């Protein structure tokens, strides 16, 4: 009979180690064909709710009206020591574990103006940019008591009750969600006054091995990790070549690309990226949910390249095909 198929068979048996029935990785993922640097959304393509980075000014204006998003107004330079960005961790104190809550996020509460006893501002956290307005009362020891309300037309809105210490430049307090059935209904925070300026020279530094939030577990029980490779090149400064990135893991590519956005103060919706930048990157400050018009040409170019290698890696890295 067909004896030569002995060879063929051995080979085919090997090939069958492959997981053929595995679903096409991320069917929803845009093929890189459509991905121009401009249209690439930050974070991972697997987060469908990600804001398109390149929303034209007109478009983003419309979105802002609809969702009542505050413009990314920088606080006006002022002698008022109370104004500015207050940044720190926004930590769950009451949550429903069944609803997959995010226990801790970096938040930026921006006090934009104070006139008399009226305070307005906005907060940037977890890819949301929400305005608030409220009242301010003089309390003990020069500390002010604030009650700040978000508009209430978004499911993530709530009320901040906090103390602002203009000497220590801190903002501490509690936040209660309007939606009592939300995954997290109460959070606490101790925020410190922080300034932000885009600095293309910011680098990740040594990462070691950072476990990916929600990362896949390997067969040996090891969780997917972000490695030092993610910070090997500064993609905001250096024009990357294929051979710079071709040997990198998908997660490292993703982090390298999102570091560009992080330098611009982009607030991540994607949990894996948010978790990484919130917790491993000291200089990271969330200030905006749309940085598309602030990207430099070098950055746009690198975003396109990195995204292409990411897409390729996530579809083909461990599969038989290609």
């Amino acid at each position: 009979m067909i004896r030569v198929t002995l060879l063929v068979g051995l080979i085919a048996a090997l090939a069958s180690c492959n997981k053929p029935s595995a679903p096409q990785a991320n069917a929803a993922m845009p093929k890189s064909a459509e991905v121009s640097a401009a249209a690439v959304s930050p974070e991972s393509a697997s987060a469908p709710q990600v804001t398109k980075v390149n929303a034209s000014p007109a478009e983003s204006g419309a979105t802002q009206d609809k969702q009542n998003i505050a413009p990314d107004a920088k606080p006006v330079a002022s002698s008022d020591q109370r104004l500015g960005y207050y940044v720190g961790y926004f930590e769950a104190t009451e949550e429903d574990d069944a609803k997959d809550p995010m226990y801790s996020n970096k938040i930026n509460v921006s006090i934009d103006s104070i006139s008399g006893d009226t305070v307005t501002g906005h907060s940037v956290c977890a890819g949301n940019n929400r305005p608030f307005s409220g009242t301010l009362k003089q309390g003990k020891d020069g500390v002010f008591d604030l009650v700040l309300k978000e508009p209430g037309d978004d499911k993530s809105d709530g009320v901040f009750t906090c103390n602002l210490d203009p000497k220590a430049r801190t903002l501490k307090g509690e936040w209660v969600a309007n939606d009592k059935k939300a995954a997290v209904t109460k959070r606490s925070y101790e925020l410190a006054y922080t300034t932000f300026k885009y600095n293309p020279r910011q680098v990740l530094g040594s990462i070691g091995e950072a476990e990916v939030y929600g990362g896949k577990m390997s067969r040996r029980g090891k969780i997917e990790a972000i490695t030092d490779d993610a910070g090997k090149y500064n993609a905001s400064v250096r024009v990357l070549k294929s051979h710079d990135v071709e040997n990198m893991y998908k997660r490292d590519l993703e982090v390298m690309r999102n570091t560009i956005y992080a330098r611009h103060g982009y607030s991540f919706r994607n949990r894996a990226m948010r978790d990484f930048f919130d917790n491993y990157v000291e200089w990271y400050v969330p200030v905006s949910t749309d940085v598309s018009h602030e990207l430099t040409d070098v950055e746009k170019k690198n975003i396109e390249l990195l995204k292409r290698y990411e897409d390729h890696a996530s579809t083909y890295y461990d599969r038989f095909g290609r």
Partner: protein
Amino acid sequence: MGVRPGVSPSARATVFPPAIPRPAAAVKAKSSAPTKLWAAIFWTAILFVYTYTLWLMLRIVLQYTSLRPDVAFLEIKQDYIDIPGYRLAFFTHVFSSGFVLLAAYSQFSAKLRRIPGLHKWLGRLYAYIVIFLAGPTGLFIGFFANGGISSRIAFCLLAVLWVSFTILALLKMRARQVQDHARWMVRSYALALSAITLRAWKVAIIALFHPHPMDVYRIVAWLGWVGNLIAAELLILYLFRRRARPTPKTRAQLLPTEVHL
């Protein structure tokens, strides 16, 4: 080494390896009923696995039918995609090489080889596709292989050997040296199968060691076909083992016409 006396051309190619006069004892010892049954089950299983693998390969080939310059593998070949002829070579290679993998069904089956002309014409089709389409295009895109000089050498060498073995097999057939033809065809096909083994090694290595993507590519660029060639040589030793140790009597019979190794 001309035509064997007393063997008609049609009879010559009905078994694999090609028939030679065997000592009677060898023929006798060959088949008991249970052995035959197990052999049938074994080969059927292998046929199924091979067919399934080809199905996977077909899905890979079908990705490229859009001919778009950024599909699948081409996503990470953007540095080379605009080199004149690259796209033509790439797509020609994908479609012609995919086709070549079907040849195992007809060419290695002893039964199908009894059909007059089938082996000859499909064999020519295989050879011409390899020599004129799949091989040269493989060499061309091999020059631009990912992974640097090491994988470039691997893929170019693979292409050169593939075409060479196929030409040799063709020439041996022309010279009516059927066993040599069979030997070179086994080698040629072993290299054709590197399309499958390269990917299989990749899956296995990544599942086991989770290496960086280009590191594994550099490894399988070599492993994918060198392993096959070793397997092919072992297979050739196995298939032609009877000829290697003929009884003194048959050796005496065979010497005048058969010894050309």
